């Protein structure tokens, strides 16, 4: 039996004349890391805010843990945690004071001391909020989203503006949260992040859901071909490789030969052929398609434009 913690049907939300979300439907399984990806303005934040009881949808239905996010908003907020893309706490509140304050809103809480340690903020616990760097603020809001021991954690653009090291440590934390049995719904416009982290990814563009599947399925269905590149001498006949099964010649320029292959056995054939031709395998590169390619193929645009 399916165990959905979030079910969204035909969600529509306008801001004045902007149609931010235009009929989105999906469900989130208990215990998965569910990613909502898409470029800025795609409608990710609005979707999350409608699910988390922060906004009332214009039409459509949203069910979260059997609750209506608008009518049962308080009951729902006791069971979820939300890290917002844009929010603040007062400048002159110290971190430990903020954690104590927000802990007082929940019946069951996680130890905030442990959360700050886990998010590398322990040394900052006596600092004012205004003294934190952008990345530290982001991490603080992740910690605050976890205070109430949530069943579902919503993380909206949780790594934008973070340094690579913090990104990696938050990825690790997100996986730990899932392994504890929590469900994570995150949004990001970093495709590599979604690919590495998410069990399933919903691709959103212009307020519409354009694809929803596991990253590997999305890539095998929409990702296109694997690219091969290697260095060659001046007089190399790349065209001749197209005679191999599953190989398509792209170009030969600046002493780099580029090919596309539709199967991994084709790569073996290429290597054999090159060896037979007496051609070295200088900087032989295999570039598998990524979610980035999926987005490009589905929407015809780069994610960041």
């Amino acid at each position, binding site marked *: 039996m399916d165990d959905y913690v979030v079910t969204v049907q035909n969600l529509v939300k306008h801001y004045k004349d902007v149609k931010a979300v235009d009929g989105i439907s999906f469900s989130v399984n208990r215990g998965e890391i569910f990613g909502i990806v898409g470029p800025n303005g795609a409608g990710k934040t609005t979707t999350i805010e409608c699910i988390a009881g922060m906004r009332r949808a214009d039409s459509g239905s949203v069910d979260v843990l059997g609750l209506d996010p608008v009518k049962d908003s308080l009951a729902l907020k006791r069971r979820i945690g939300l890290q*917002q893309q844009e929010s603040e706490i*007062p400048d002159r*509140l110290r971190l430990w004071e903020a954690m104590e304050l927000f802990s007082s809103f929940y019946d069951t809480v996680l130890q905030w001391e442990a959360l700050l340690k886990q998010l590398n903020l322990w040394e900052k616990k006596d600092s004012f909020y205004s003294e934190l760097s952008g990345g530290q603020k982001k991490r603080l809001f992740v910690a605050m989203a976890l205070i109430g021991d949530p069943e579902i954690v919503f993380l909206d653009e949780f790594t934008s503006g973070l340094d690579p090291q913090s990104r990696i440590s938050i990825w690790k934390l997100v996986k730990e949260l899932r392994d504890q049995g929590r469900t994570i719904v995150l949004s990001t416009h970093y495709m590599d992040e979604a690919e590495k982290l998410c069990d399933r990814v919903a691709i959103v563009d212009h307020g519409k859901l354009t694809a929803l599947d596991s990253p590997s399925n999305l890539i095998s269905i929409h990702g296109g071909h694997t690219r091969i590149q290697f260095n060659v001498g001046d007089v190399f006949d790349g065209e001749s490789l197209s005679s191999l099964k599953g190989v398509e010649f792209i170009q030969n320029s600046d002493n780099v030969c580029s090919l596309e292959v539709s199967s991994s056995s084709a790569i073996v054939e290429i290597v054999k052929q090159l060896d037979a031709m007496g051609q070295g395998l200088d900087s032989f590169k295999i570039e598998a398609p990524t979610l980035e390619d999926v987005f490009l193929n589905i929407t015809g645009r780069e994610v960041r434009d």
Partner: protein
Amino acid sequence: MKIPFIAVSKSEFILYLREPSAFFFTLIFPLLLMLLFASMIGNDPFPEEEFGYVDFSVAAYMGMVMVTSFVMALATSMAAYREKGILKRFRAAPVTPFSILAGQLVAIFAVTVAGVILLLIAGFVFYDLKFFGNFFEFVFVFLLSSASIAALGFIPASLAPTARSGEVIANIMYFPMLFLSGAALPQSMLPDLLKNISLAFPLTHAIRLMQGVWLGGHFWDYPVHVMVLAGFILAGLFVSVKYFKWE
């Protein structure tokens, strides 16, 4: 510590004390002003009266503390909270709007009481301040006045979209009230026209009522003041319940 609004009011109170200008203008400035005038005028009884300048004006300085905290501080801080997304962060937590607003009010009321206590201590210690009224009756009119000024402050606090606009509206409300209602200057120094204009402000009624009871009158002697103050409470409640904006 499990009662959200108490936790909110505790942290708001601490934040208030950490805001140097708010701290100065609510807690220190009215005190300095009272001491300045008292040092010039003294507190000897006026001719044919039992009370002197300090006895007469301490209630006006209380009004000044009230209007500074409930109008200036509340409107500016709520508007800034709204603009910066602090209210939004609160709303993501399982806490009712009531807890957040009540927490703010309780904190600001605590600051007001602190400011009033400073005035009283200075009055008793330096100028032999005398109280002629009934203690409980004074507490009642003090609470009524505070609630009324708070309700007035809640109107811009509920509506102002940005910190800047909150400040502007608060200033527009604050300074005329401060100077015309008898808070910073005795009304006897004003021409009749300005005195009449000042009747539009709840602070004028609050100060006259508190002054009356402080000097031995009863609140039922001032039905107009009591009714105007109650009316502002209702108006403020109506506006903030109906139009309060989170972002």
